[in-house]
């Protein structure tokens, strides 16, 4: 859910590895980010709508990844996938690390690009430890 740079990259990679992938985005224009070789499905719709998720095949899905720009939208859709459609493996991108930590206690796998980015940048700065 969410065909931005991250979503498109994940979808393309899974597709290339032979998995069956559906990419969901509100805006069909976002699918331009997918490579020409992409063999999966592209569905236009709001992932926070249970009907849209069902049509996208959520009931049969082994994994669900929410990578829209909105932490709360990602959370809402992730819980729909988990609670309503029983998807086992759900990953919810959460930019706000505080919120992400709480979401992690509520049944989701979360990933915070903010924390990960800060750590990566700190690691590139020599002598970034205690002065």
């Amino acid at each position, binding site marked *: 859910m969410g065909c931005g740079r991250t979503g498109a990259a994940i979808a393309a990679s899974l597709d290339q590895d032979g998995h069956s992938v559906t990419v969901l985005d509100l805006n069909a224009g976002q699918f331009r980010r997918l490579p020409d070789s992409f063999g999966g499905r592209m569905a236009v719709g709001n992932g926070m709508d249970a009907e849209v998720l069902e049509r996208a095949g959520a009931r049969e899905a082994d994994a669900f990844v929410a990578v829209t720009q909105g932490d709360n939208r990602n*959370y809402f859709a992730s*819980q729909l996938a988990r*609670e309503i459609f029983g998807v086992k493996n759900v990953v919810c991108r959460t930019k*706000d690390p505080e*919120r992400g930590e*709480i*979401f992690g206690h509520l049944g989701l796998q979360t990933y915070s690009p903010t924390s990960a980015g800060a750590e990566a940048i700190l690691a590139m700065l020599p002598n970034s430890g205690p002065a």
Partner: protein
Amino acid sequence: MYVIIAGGGKVGYYLGRELLSGDHEMLVIERSASRAAEINDLLEGTVQQGDACEASVLDGAGIARADLVAAVTGDDEDNLVVCEIARYRGVPRVLARVNNPTNALLFQKRGIETTVSATEAILSQIEQELPVTSMVPVMQLHQGLELVEVRLSETSPVVGRTPREVLLPPESLIALIVDSGGVPRVPGADTTLTVGDALVVVTRAESKGMLQEALIGGAHGFDT
């Protein structure tokens, strides 16, 4: 009681005003700075500008000692997140406004039982105004018995039959038939049920579903 309201739109504002006049301690958290300033004056300085979906904002608002958190923004995903964080912080009661009625199921699955949906509330009022296809409660009788009125439409499975041929749930009985002209009749062996008849039926509360199916058929009212 200390109540935190997430969202200072129309619902949050009026809710806050009612709570203030009821002598509750109350705080409204509103994301938009201009809206927060606007209602802060009207709500005696009880409005804080901030994003209630951020745990640190809720912590700063004293969520640890809140008795109730009401999430009433116009976005269901925001309301869900506020309720989840509040519960995670140990707030005893959380309440959510649900803008899209189909989302109520997810709130329930997440253990947030109290949801309020204006759409649902209006819909149930509309259903009560539809006598053609619905069963209208008339009065409560003794020992769990109730009097209801059912108006027969073209799709009713009992049209054309006599009252005796109708299979009713246990302890249910057609007491009176008022035809479309307003003439009351006691049901007899030669009475034929016709479209437009209003049947006054004695039944039990737990049998109303079965009664509805017997007299009206499967689908009724609005299917939400």
